[in-house]
């Protein structure tokens, strides 16, 4: 069972932004690459602030990055 039920599109958004690496995204946010990897794999729920920062890096709204599935 995954620690969080929050789903995300970070990997797809990274690829859509010129193949941005996890390390590059981590540097932009001031977090570790391992944290980006954990968020992508659903092993860690970021704080609301970091979630907004991720959305800002990709220039999209929060619900284009994160999604809480119905019935979860």
């Amino acid at each position, binding site marked *: 069972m*995954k620690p969080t039920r929050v789903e995300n599109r970070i990997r797809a958004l990274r690829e859509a932004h010129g193949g941005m690496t996890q390390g590059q995204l981590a540097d932009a946010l001031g977090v570790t*690459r391992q944290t980006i990897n954990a968020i992508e794999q659903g092993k860690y729920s970021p*704080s609301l602030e970091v979630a907004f920062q991720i959305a800002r890096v990709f220039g999209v709204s929060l619900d284009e990055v994160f999604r809480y599935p119905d019935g979860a």
Partner: protein
Amino acid sequence: MSLDARVAVWQFITAIGTYAAYLWLLFDRAGDGPLVDTAYGDLVAWTVGGGLVVTIIGSIAIAIAGGRSGRLTDMRDKQIARLADAVGASFVTIGGMAALILAIVEVDHFWIGNVIYLAFVTSGLLSSLARIVMHRFGVPSW
């Protein structure tokens, strides 16, 4: 592996190593005599002190070896450390309660001291293990 995860592994290994060294030295000193009559205070002091020094030096070496990016820690590391500390703290309480009960029933101070030491070691081991597990498998969310 992040700095915090690598340091947790190092702390886990160090805790096992120092307690194993303590037991080995204790049984070696006891020889064929009764264990409760064996002086253990200096062994506790040396293994606890030595363990702290080895942990600190090892952690610094791990941080240096990781380079600039390898030294970065973030809110996830802090969150994991806080949860792991809570896991470890439970065994300090259990150890304290066990020592109190042993004191009430007037068991030899050797056993009281060793129960407290074992509780500290168990606390440290569980705390490190919890950190390793959360780094590897994820942070529980409520």
